[in-house]
């Protein structure tokens, strides 16, 4: 071995020791990054294109429903082969309702029952089918606004519902997919403001450059105020004064937290908000008309006629007025006296 090699030896030994000594940490004993599971989401199919009304269809009054039955069959004795007979055989009426529209369809957290003006309409239908115990024969399905038409199209025997009572506006486009009862309530778009504020209408809000107006995203209510021809100042500066929230109840939260000066929506819904927050009031005149109807599957004309007869009876018997008084006047949501019920229009041909 040469001298040169001998001199190299300590260095080689040192490196060997270093490698052996440091080799111990080669195995990965580190803390791993947190695991984030991903859930395979079913690809959302684009919603089918909404059918549009033809000029002739649009010309017809959308409130026009099928004629009511001349006389109601006795409860528990529904005509064979009818939709009502199928419901009677099933033993329960499946109704799609709102769970959080106070005064119209909301769960009472004390009793646990769903109650409101819309619910009274459902109960009247159930009593007409089953008799006095009809109230106990309703299966409520709390559904979203977006589920109202699809649940009717699916049908009660396929995860859907028999009837929708969910502050639903009758219009031509919806008639293309479902059928409606005659108009049972006339609502309209209004604004809710703080009582201490000076705003008395949507025009006052339009005029004040500091006023922010909240409405639920995707609603006809927000479409209305986004119309820059009607409300140029509200839509100035990119429409930053229009506060969009996923749900109209989030608008009440936004207003209570000072993030909006007003909410715009159907006066029925706003009346429920005023009942929940006595510092607020519904003001101004209706600036749109929203005729409400009960939704029924398109091909169930017999059931529409039956429901229209039930609603007729409710109007003439004073039941409609009782419900109006109980839910809208006694709660303090609205003031004044019970108005005349809306006059339904019939004569639609199947």
């Amino acid at each position, binding site marked *: 071995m040469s001298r040169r090699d001998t001199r190299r030896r*300590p260095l080689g030994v040192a490196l060997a020791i*270093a490698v052996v*000594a440091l080799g111990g940490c080669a195995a990965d004993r580190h803390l791993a990054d947190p695991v984030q599971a991903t859930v395979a989401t079913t690809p959302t199919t684009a919603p089918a294109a909404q059918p549009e009304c033809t000029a002739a269809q649009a010309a017809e009054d959308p409130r026009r429903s099928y004629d009511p039955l001349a006389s109601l069959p006795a409860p528990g004795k529904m005509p064979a082969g009818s939709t009502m007979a199928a419901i009677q055989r099933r033993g329960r009426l499946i109704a799609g309702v709102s769970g*959080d529209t106070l005064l119209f369809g909301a769960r009472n957290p*004390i009793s646990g029952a769903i109650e409101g003006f819309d619910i009274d309409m459902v109960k009247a239908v159930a009593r007409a089918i089953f008799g006095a115990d009809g109230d106990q024969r309703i299966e409520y399905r709390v559904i979203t606004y977006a*589920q109202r038409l699809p649940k009717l199209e699916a049908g009660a025997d396929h995860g859907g519902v028999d009837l929708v009572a969910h502050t639903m506006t009758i219009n031509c486009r919806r008639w293309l997919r479902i059928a409606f009862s005659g108009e049972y309530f006339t609502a309209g778009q209004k604004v809710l403001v703080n009582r201490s504020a000076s705003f008395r209408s949507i025009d006052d809000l339009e005029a004040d450059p500091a006023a922010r107006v909240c409405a639920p995203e995707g609603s006809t209510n927000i479409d209305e105020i986004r119309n820059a021809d009607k409300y140029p100042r509200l839509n100035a500066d990119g429409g930053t004064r229009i506060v969009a929230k996923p749900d109209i109840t989030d608008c009440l939260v936004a207003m209570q937290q000072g993030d909006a000066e007003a909410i715009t929506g159907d006066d029925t819904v706003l009346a429920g908000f005023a009942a929940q927050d006595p510092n607020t009031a519904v003001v101004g005149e209706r600036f749109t008309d929203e005729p409400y109807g009960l939704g029924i599957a398109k091909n169930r004309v017999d059931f529409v006629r039956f429901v229209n007869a039930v609603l007729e009876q409710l109007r003439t018997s004073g039941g409609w007025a009782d419900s109006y008084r109980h839910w809208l006047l006694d709660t303090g949501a609205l003031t004044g006296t019970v108005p005349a019920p809306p006059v339904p229009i019939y004569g639609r041909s199947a």
Partner: protein
Amino acid sequence: MASSAIARILASTPARLRAWQVGTVVLAVVVGLLSALGVARHQADLREARLAADSLLRVQEIRVAAVSADSLASRAYLEGGQESAEARAAYAAAIETAAGGLVAVSEQLPAADAAALTTAGADVGRYVGLVEQARANNRQGFPVGAAYQRQANGVLSGSILPALATVEQRTRAAINARLDAAAGNRLWVILPAVAALAAVVAASRWLARRFHRQVNVPLAGAGLVMVVAALLVVVGLTSSLDRATAAVGDDLAAADRVAQARAAAFDARSQEGLTLINRGNGAANEAAWQRSSATVGAVLSAACESPEPAPPTPAAECQVRQIYDAYVLAHQQMRNTDDAGDWDQAVTSTLAPATESALTRSFDEFDAAARSLIGQQAGAARHGLGASLDWLGALRILALIGGLLAALLAGRGFGQRLAEYR
């Protein structure tokens, strides 16, 4: 010229002997100091790793407390005005754990993390305010309470939990970085020792040539002392590092995984309540349940499918996973009940005590098993990291004594030859 001046000074053998003597003595002392410094750095790195591990465990406790508070709040909302005093107390305790924990753990974290946790603390205050609003509205029968409850959950999942997750992740990275740094500290012992050994060998060879003796015993002893001291210190550091990496890689990692699973499970439980609160409008909450639940499964499955089974940990984690699977099954049954239209029965099974509801029972069993396993693993991790610091003080003294002893022997070795010139 400096080099010629040095050459003149070192022209005589005694001068060269003295130069070698001074050089090797200084080198031995420096080797001792550097070794001790290496041990001190190792000690500092492991102390930091231990502190960061403790912070990680505490931040995870806070996260679990926050999500469990939310799960209690959403279930209390479902109960409306019937909320029991025990449920209220459990919620208050969970909030207290989260809020108090944030303040306490902030003190032992770097400034950026402490600032993030201070913001999270303010968000906990906001969260509590929203839950109270939800509760007050709910007690009066106002549906707007549900929107406040949703918003509260949004603050938790949108602000508080991401802040905690970021701090957790940075703390994990800090622990890993400290272990890597600790592994490199052995070079502070090895490289100077090798250099000194080379110098001793060179000096011995020079002495052997100059004085025609085979071995200068004290100088050889100096070399031997340095080699033995360096080996002892390196072995000590390696053993300490092994304990620390085992504590982190096995025990802390297991505690970390199970804590993540437990937090995700409580989030799932919250979403389960919110799905029922938002009744019919709860599809987004059920989707969030699916995500959180899948995270529980994935975190615990990773342990079950570990290629290196090291009982008892993976076995225990798999057992926790199996208990969770029972909860998933009970949840599905409850969802089927709700989807079939029987919301009241679904709520009853969610709120009923463990003795009456498989859903509550399976979740409570999961929580108890996960909490116990986290406790065991966290205890083992804290113990292991503490034990990795044992004997390091003695090791540092050993490094210093080794250097001094080697210096003494080297000085004596050259001193013997120098004495021959007096």
